[in-house]
């Protein structure tokens, strides 16, 4: 039994090690560490601010440890998920998975190894923060006495259990077919928003902290007691600010969370929950069985098909007939490429996708209230996000780049066609809003809407071309969409959907930005061609 245990341990170690090494040797890992470094820098220089009722704590080890741990559980649980949610997909796309599936390794072993690797990557991101924390303490010089336990306890008991949960959820998403792709990325964003806020709201209302996976309410409760201010339920804030001066009406001393055994146990329960989630993922994992990939909308070859391919579908012995082309290829047919790109973009959509899109168009056109119409436009322009996110990515993802880039004028013809197909999609899905503005003769609103229709596909194309993945656009766009149009934040209302935006200079800023991003997209494609 010991031998078997040791063997399992070795397999698990090798699995996680290989996966971790494969990740850290990619450029994307540098980007990942860059996020952490920025957060550490922002905290150390005072841009990242935590307040309680406009007061802040004295910069001692406890306050800095708490602040950094909360940075981990708020920012890194979002960014980190997208960073690690590709480990099983990589094995699928590189076909290493098929080799692994033919070994005696169990599904549990494989999935646990992947979850551990995820956790190690997330831990590497988190570890940068306590180091920044020490710098921060000396930077502000309010209390230079470094207390290691108070600095590190929030990392160990708040940040790391939260990261374990994220690591396991990322694996779970990869094993559930419909959460594996872009839809899962968007689902996680909304699930993360809800999961982060609901336990805190519950705790503020005197409810249980049991579902506080991020540890936010643990710190919030302790801070509230230390601040001794009025019990303002909205008094806690954590924000990144452009002004480096830490503005606060007053300061108070916080000596950290009093870690009772029940609190420690509650946090460790989340590690157990992470293990349970990973085990659930193992149960759902298809072990790279291609016959279980019907969800993708592509029929796997059936027995009959295979026979047909062997017997009836051989190439003929002689060329039957091939008429020479009367005119030399190379004529510019933008319409044909555009239609082809649009078809490629819309291919595989089910009837209900069109039904929802049509419903949103009608609702947009029929809603008299400007605010509600703005929200409906935002929804109408979130609906096609997975189609936009494929722009500039398909060539790499489906390995057609060599075929397309060896065709005439790949930048002057194919790239504009992809972009214009994205614009057509935006105009069609947002036509309820744009049509109403046109009908009412509201030119400002119409122009703002049109700029939005140009901005979205341009951003998608540039991000797709440069990142080679649809993930970046899905994350950035959803975040922008949520903070900007959905919350009517003027500066980020790139759709011009909120009442009043059209009358400002904001749409013109996004028009200029669209031109700049379009240039970036062209440069990205040029770079791909000149590799």
């Amino acid at each position, binding site marked *: 039994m010991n031998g078997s245990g040791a063997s399992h341990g070795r397999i698990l170690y090798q699995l996680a090690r290989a996966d971790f090494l494969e990740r850290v040797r990619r450029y994307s890992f540098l980007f990942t560490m860059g996020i952490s470094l920025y957060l550490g820098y922002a905290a150390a220089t005072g841009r990242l601010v935590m307040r309680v009722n406009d007061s802040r704590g004295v910069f001692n080890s406890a306050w800095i440890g708490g602040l950094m741990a909360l940075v981990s559980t708020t920012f890194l649980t979002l960014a980190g998920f997208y960073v690690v949610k590709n480990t099983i997909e990589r094995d699928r796309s590189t076909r290493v998975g098929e080799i692994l599936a033919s070994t005696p390794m169990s599904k549990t072993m494989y999935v646990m190894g992947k979850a551990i690797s995820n956790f190690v990557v997330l831990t590497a991101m988190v570890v940068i923060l306590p180091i920044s924390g020490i710098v921060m303490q000396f930077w502000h010089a309010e209390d230079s006495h470094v207390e290691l336990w108070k600095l590190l306890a929030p990392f160990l008991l708040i940040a790391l259990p939260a990261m374990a949960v994220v690591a396991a959820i990322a694996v779970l998403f990869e094993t559930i077919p419909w959460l594996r792709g872009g839809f899962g990325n968007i689902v996680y964003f909304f699930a993360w928003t809800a999961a982060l806020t609901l336990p805190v709201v519950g705790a503020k209302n005197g409810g249980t902290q049991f579902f506080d996976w991020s540890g936010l309410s643990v710190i919030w409760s302790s801070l509230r007691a230390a601040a001794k201010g009025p019990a303002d339920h909205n008094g806690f804030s954590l924000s990144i600010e452009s002004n480096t001066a830490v503005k606060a009406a007053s300061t108070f001393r916080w000596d950290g969370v009093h870690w009772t055994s029940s609190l420690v146990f509650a946090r460790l329960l989340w590690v157990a929950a992470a293990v349970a989630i990973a085990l659930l993922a193992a149960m759902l994992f298809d072990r790279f069985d291609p016959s279980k990939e019907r969800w*993708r*909308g*592509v*029929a*796997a*070859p059936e027995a009959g*098909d*295979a026979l*047909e*391919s*062997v017997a*009836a*579908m*051989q*190439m*003929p*012995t*002689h*060329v*039957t*007939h*091939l*008429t*020479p*082309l*009367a*005119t*030399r*290829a*190379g*004529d*510019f*047919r933008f319409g*044909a*490429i555009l*239609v*082809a790109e649009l*078809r*490629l973009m819309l*291919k*595989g959509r089910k009837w209900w996708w069109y039904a929802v899109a049509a419903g949103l168009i009608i609702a947009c056109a029929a809603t008299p209230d400007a605010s509600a119409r703005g929200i409906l436009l935002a929804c109408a322009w979130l609906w096609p996000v997975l189609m936009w996110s494929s722009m500039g990515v*398909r060539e790499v993802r*489906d*390995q*057609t*780049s*060599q*075929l*397309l*880039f*060896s*065709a*005439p*004028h790949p930048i002057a*013809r*194919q790239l504009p066609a992809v972009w214009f197909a994205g614009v057509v999609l935006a105009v069609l899905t947002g036509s309820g809003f744009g049509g109403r503005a046109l009908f009412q003769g509201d030119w400002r609103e119409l122009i703002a809407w049109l700029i939005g229709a140009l901005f979205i596909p341009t951003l998608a194309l540039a991000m797709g071309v440069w990142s080679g993945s649809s993930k970046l656009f899905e994350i950035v766009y959803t975040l922008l969409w949520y903070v900007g149009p959905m919350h009517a934040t003027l500066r980020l209302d790139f759709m011009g959907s909120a009442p009043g935006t059209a009358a400002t200079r904001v749409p013109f800023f996004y028009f200029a930005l669209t031109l700049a991003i379009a240039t970036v997209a062209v440069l990205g494609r040029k770079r791909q*061609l*000149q*590799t």
Partner: protein
Amino acid sequence: MKLVIDGVSKQYAGKVWGLRDLRLELRPGVVGLLGPNGAGKSTLMRIIATVTRASAGRVLWNDADIAQAPDTLRSVLGYLPQDFGVYPHLTALEFLEYMAAVKGLDAASARKRIDELLAVVNLAEARDRSLGGFSGGMKQRVGIAQALLNDPELLIVDEPTAGLDPEERARFRNLLSELSGERIVVFSTHIVSDIEAIATDIAIMGGGRLLAHAAPEDLLRAVEGKVWEWVIASAEVPAAKQRFLISSSARRTDGVHVRVVSAERPGAEAELAAPTLEDAYLHCISSQRAGVAA
């Protein structure tokens, strides 16, 4: 119609050379590009197909530098890469329509050409099936069809028989042979039998360099009088392999029949044999390796 590869080199990150000062002039016909794995064949194919750029040197299509004016070549180019993908949700017909649009074919010509090509590669009945459900061989045939869409003057096929069964390979060779006519076909492979019967000339590559470029007959002439049939005991085979270049061996009742490529008679019982292209190719590659080792 002329393709000139003029001193082309390609250096990858880490100062690894994929190609070194390669010079080659190609005229209409089927050029068999032979070489072991890692010889630089695919790198050369990608440079000619304008997918990647040479670090040094030029590729001239009818005297025009393709790095300066890639579209002059692209409009007459058909390219089947070694590794390529397809859009799994599109049918074979839709994918070819898409590629025809990208290549700039007018609608009427494209429709007719696609119908004919689907018949040529025998996928007419599968034209409306999603590519995601195609077998490897069927996908390869879609690749062949897209390469021929624009009736190319220069057809580059990189390891095109990979994934095809032996019968399909033979049929593909015939197809290329019949299509060659007034166009340059560059057929890259490491399997000599793929090009033995159809190549009008052969270029052999090794270590990123051009080792030989000649008509098949000239390559055969170079090893005439150097190929031997020799029957030895199976126990003697390891020693023979140490001393001589053995191009093939077969176990028979009277011992092991080995085919030796050597300037000197390997043994008293060895008899001269008619050389094959395989012998010539192995001789060329082993001479290069011996040169590198020296």
